[in-house]
Each structure stands twice: as structure tokens, then as C-alpha cells.
């Protein structure tokens, strides 16, 4: 991700300056430095291996043909104690405190990336740490959401929400938020970050007052929806009978999203991370400079690639759903199949998110603690981890791959549930698997490319 890499670029240069040159040099080459060049594997073979692993795992999954085994695996669960009312109240109150102090310190604390609490809380604690917890543990956002706490405290006008809009406003809002993140120095500029958080809070509270908090956070708010979807991947699931422990991803095959709009949201969730990484590659720098050379405004180039890429992703997924209907000789509609198979993509998005953020979270957690203890006069050089071991790059690649493997399995289990014939189920997965193989290779290529500042917008 541009932001993560920007944070990490800062990290590496700091580390070099403070005589951690060895570790930093080993790490600043990014993932490829740690894994690929040391083995001297050509890029095409490295990418093909990733794609091959996904394709092979599809074939291996197809060997599991015992329906009862698949169902038992996915039905396995244990009950967990539900936290009491007092604990959830206290947690929510604390979250409101974190939100308000983030905005406040964003404006008044030192105007430096790694010495400002707002930057560290938003990007390290929240986007890196909390978001990872939504798919690794369970989605605690409905309990914590500080903006919802503010909205709940206000009266509601309860104006009717236009039903025909469905989830589209959240798709647009997600695309807009990530767009702001890509084209502005949101990870470097505490004042700008605090402004964006404040505007988001005001818009959200305002919307919740107009159509009612429940409606707003279910339909319109992109963050609540994103975390809810990530939460479907997690082992801890909330049910009517309290919290349940399940196998990771086990809830996905029974999770059908409800329409084209929600399919578009899942695809957008996957696409935005890809775009964020893609604009920081050398290939994009060349393309953008070339197109700008003939007189196209840079913003238009970025926006065109953004919307065009999203439509391309959506088109590829819809094509896979249509192909599944044809090959499985099924009368299920392509829209229905897209709704059933979309949740498997969430496992990929989760793996991708973890690969991109875990490094920054580990490196900067000492910084967060140091700055949080004295936000107004933080240490001049806040501490951070000296570096991560060389094998950490391999671990990041493993997260990307594990996400894809889980997605292949989820799609297999979903197909078993959707089609009565087991060979039908296998055949329905050919196009889906092909799309996943191509997507794996694309994302591995992006994470293995050295960071190139996006032209025209890099700060």
C-alpha cells in the first residue's frame, strides 16, 4: 500500500540514520529482497509459483468429495462467554475518548508523522491492529464504534431511507475514502488526517440522525460494512445465542450477500488494496508519465485507472459467475452465484490486508506507546523496533497465499452447498479459480515490486 510503504520508507531511512543499516537495507528492498533475490528466482517463475499454488490447491480441494465431512467441518462450533454490559459500555466510552483525543491531538500535537498521536492511532492501532482483529478474532466494531456511540446519544428524525439505493452509497463512500487516502498525504499530515476524521464523524452522525442510526450503520457507513464483512472470516461469530467459536472462514459458505450492490462492495474491498499498491509500482509511474505527456491531467489519469480498474474487477467476477452457471449446467442465476461466491473473496482481502500492515504495526507499536504517554511533548526520536528478521518478508507472502487458499476452500464448500452434483460443483469453479490465479499473480507482483513514489501525488 502506498501509505504503508510511505510509513515504511520513513522507517527505513530513520533506521539507516540510526545505525541499523544492516537490518534496514535487508528490509527496505521490501518482500522481494527478503525472499526472492536471495534465492535468485526470476520474477515470472516466482509469480507462476504463487498462481500454481492456488491452482494446485483447487485440485487438492476437489479431492475432498465427502459432503458430510465438508458440512461437519463448517458446522463445528463452541459457545463462548459473552462480555457483560458493563465491559461493553466501558469499552465504548473508551473508544469515544480515543476518537475525540485523536482529532484533538491531530490538530494540536507536533506536526510530524511519527511524533503525532493521531497518525499513530489511526494507521497503526486502528487500521493496522484493530482491522486485523476483525478477521483474525471477530468484529468488535458494532460494540466499540465511537461514532455510533455519539449518534445513539442524539435523537433521530427517522426519515425513510430510499430502499432502491441499497448498499450503493457504501460502495461509493468506500471508493471515495480510499481515493482520498491515495491522492492526499493522509498518512503524513496529522492536520489533514484530523480534518478527515472530523468530517467523517460529522457526516456520519448527521446521516444517522436523519435516517436513524441502525439504518445508517447497516446500509450507508462503509467502515461498519467493511468490518462486518471482514468479521465473516473470523473465528468468533456473533449469533442470537451469544458468541460462538468456529473455524476461520467456516461461516463464509453460508454467508450470501444480498444483491449486486453488496457484491460490488466486496469486490471494491479487494480492489482498493490492489489499486493502492499498484500506483506505487514502476509500471504505473511509466504509464502515468506517458499519458500525462500527451496532455491528460494527472487527476484524470488516476481517477480513470481507479474507476476503470474497479469495473474490470467487477466484470471479471461477473464473468466467472456466468461461466460457473454454464459449466455446472445450472439454472441458478449468475447474480445468485455472484452473491454466493463473493464472500470467498473476503478471505483474500483479509490475507492481503495482514500482509500489508503487520510489519508497520510491529515496527511502530513502541512508537505508539511512547507517543501516547506524552502526546503533547513526544520524544524527539520515538523508539521503534530496530527491524524485522529477513524471514518476515516470507511470512507476508505466506499471508497473501493463505488468504487465497482459504478462499479456494470456501468456494469449494460454497459450490457443494449450491449445486446438488459434486462434479457440477467442481466444474463451476474453473473460471473462479482462473480469476483467483490471475489475481494472486497480480498481487504477488505488486507486493514484490520495489516502492516507487506515485508520480504527481507523492509527498
Amino acid at each position, binding site marked *: 500500500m502506498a501509505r504503508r510503504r510511505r510509513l515504511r520508507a520513513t522507517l527505513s531511512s530513520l533506521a539507516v540514520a540510526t545505525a541499523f543499516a544492516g537490518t534496514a537495507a535487508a528490509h527496505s528492498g521490501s518482500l522481494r529482497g527478503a525472499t526472492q533475490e536471495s*534465492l*535468485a*528466482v*526470476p520474477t515470472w*517463475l516466482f509469480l*507462476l*509459483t504463487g498462481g*500454481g499454488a492456488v*491452482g*494446485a490447491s483447487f*485440485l*487438492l480441494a*476437489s*479431492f475432498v*468429495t465427502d*459432503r458430510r465431512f465438508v458440512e461437519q467441518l463448517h458446522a463445528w462450533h463452541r459457545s463462548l462467554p459473552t462480555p457483560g454490559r458493563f465491559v461493553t459500555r466501558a469499552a465504548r466510552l473508551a473508544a469515544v475518548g480515543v476518537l475525540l483525543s485523536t482529532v484533538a491531538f491531530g490538530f494540536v500535537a507536533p506536526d510530524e508523522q511519527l511524533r503525532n498521536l493521531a497518525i499513530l492511532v489511526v494507521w497503526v492501532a486502528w487500521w493496522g491492529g484493530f482491522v486485523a482483529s476483525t478477521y483474525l478474532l471477530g468484529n468488535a466494531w458494532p460494540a466499540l464504534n465511537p461514532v455510533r456511540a455519539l449518534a445513539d446519544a442524539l435523537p433521530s428524525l427517522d426519515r425513510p431511507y430510499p430502499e432502491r439505493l441499497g448498499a450503493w452509497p457504501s460502495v461509493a463512500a468506500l471508493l471515495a475514502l480510499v481515493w482520498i487516502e491515495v491522492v492526499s498525504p493522509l498518512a503524513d499530515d496529522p492536520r489533514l488526517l484530523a480534518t478527515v476524521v472530523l468530517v467523517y464523524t460529522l457526516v456520519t452522525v448527521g446521516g444517522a440522525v436523519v435516517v436513524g442510526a441502525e439504518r445508517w450503520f447497516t446500509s450507508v457507513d462503509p467502515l461498519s460494512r467493511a468490518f462486518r464483512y471482514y468479521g465473516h472470516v473470523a473465528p468468533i461469530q456473533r449469533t442470537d445465542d451469544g458468541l460462538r467459536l468456529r473455524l476461520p472462514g467456516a461461516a463464509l459458505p*453460508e454467508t*450470501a450477500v444480498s444483491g449486486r450492490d453488496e457484491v460490488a462492495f466486496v469486490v471494491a474491498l479487494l480492489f482498493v488494496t490492489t489499486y493502492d499498491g499498484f500506483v506505487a509500482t514502476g509500471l504505473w509511474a511509466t504509464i502515468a508519465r506517458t499519458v500525462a505527456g500527451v496532455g491528460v491531467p494527472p487527476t484524470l489519469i488516476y481517477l480513470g485507472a481507479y474507476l476503470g480498474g474497479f469495473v474490470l474487477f467487477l466484470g471479471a467476477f461477473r464473468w466467472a459467475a456466468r461461466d460457473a452457471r454454464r459449466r455446472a*449446467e*445450472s*439454472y*441458478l*442465476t449468475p*447474480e*445468485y452465484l455472484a452473491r*454466493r461466491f463473493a464472500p470467498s473473496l473476503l478471505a483474500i482481502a483479509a490475507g492481503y490486508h495482514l500482509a500489508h500492515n503487520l510489519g508497520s504495526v510491529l515496527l511502530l507499536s513502541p512508537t505508539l506507546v511512547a507517543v501516547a504517554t506524552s502526546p503533547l511533548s513526544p520524544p524527539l526520536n520515538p523508539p521503534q523496533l530496530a527491524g524485522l528478521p529477513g524471514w518476515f518478508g516470507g511470512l507476508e507472502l505466506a499471508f497473501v497465499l493463505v488468504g487465497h487458499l482459504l478462499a479456494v476452500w470456501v468456494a469449494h464448500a460454497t459450490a457443494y*452447498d*449450491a*449445486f*446438488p*452434483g*459434486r*462434479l*457440477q460443483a*467442481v466444474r463451476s469453479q474453473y473460471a473462479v479459480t482462473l480469476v483467483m490465479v490471475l489475481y494472486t499473480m497480480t498481487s504477488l507482483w505488486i507486493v514484490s515490486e520495489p516502492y516507487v513514489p506515485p508520480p504527481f501525488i507523492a509527498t
Partner: protein
Amino acid sequence: MTRTDVDTDVPADAEAHVCSYCGRPFAREKYLVLHRGLAHPDDVSDGERDAYERAYAEEQADIDRFRIVALGVLVVIYFGFLFAYAVFAA
């Protein structure tokens, strides 16, 4: 689970085998037979259950054939990569 609550669309000129319990259409009779056994195990007649068990066993033979092909492809992938790494990875 979700085997009966589905959206379907039968092409105008296509024949459909429709489930008498839930109305879901299928392109082939064997899919309908399998569906009845999987989605309505408590409602089917003895004859329908026998038909389901026969279809499930027949399907197993097709699956065994598919497995042989899949195994072959896996072997090709494995040795393909073994060869590629031996030649191109220094």
C-alpha cells in the same frame, strides 16, 4: 441450509426438471434426484431415496475418473515446477 432459497432462471427453450417440494428447476434429472435427497431428506419417498442413493453412487464413478485426471495435472504441475526451478533458479 440454503439449497431451496435460491434465484433461478430457466432459458425459454430449455427443459426443466422441477423439484416437487420446493420448485427449484434443474437442467438434468440426475441433478433433481440428487437435490431431493440432499435438500429434502425428511420428506422424500422410499423410491426417491433409493434413486438418490443410486445417483450418488453413480456420481462417485464420475468423480473417480475426475480424480485420476486431477492427479495427472497435479503431477504435471509438480514436475513442471521442479524442472523450472532446476533450470531457471540459480
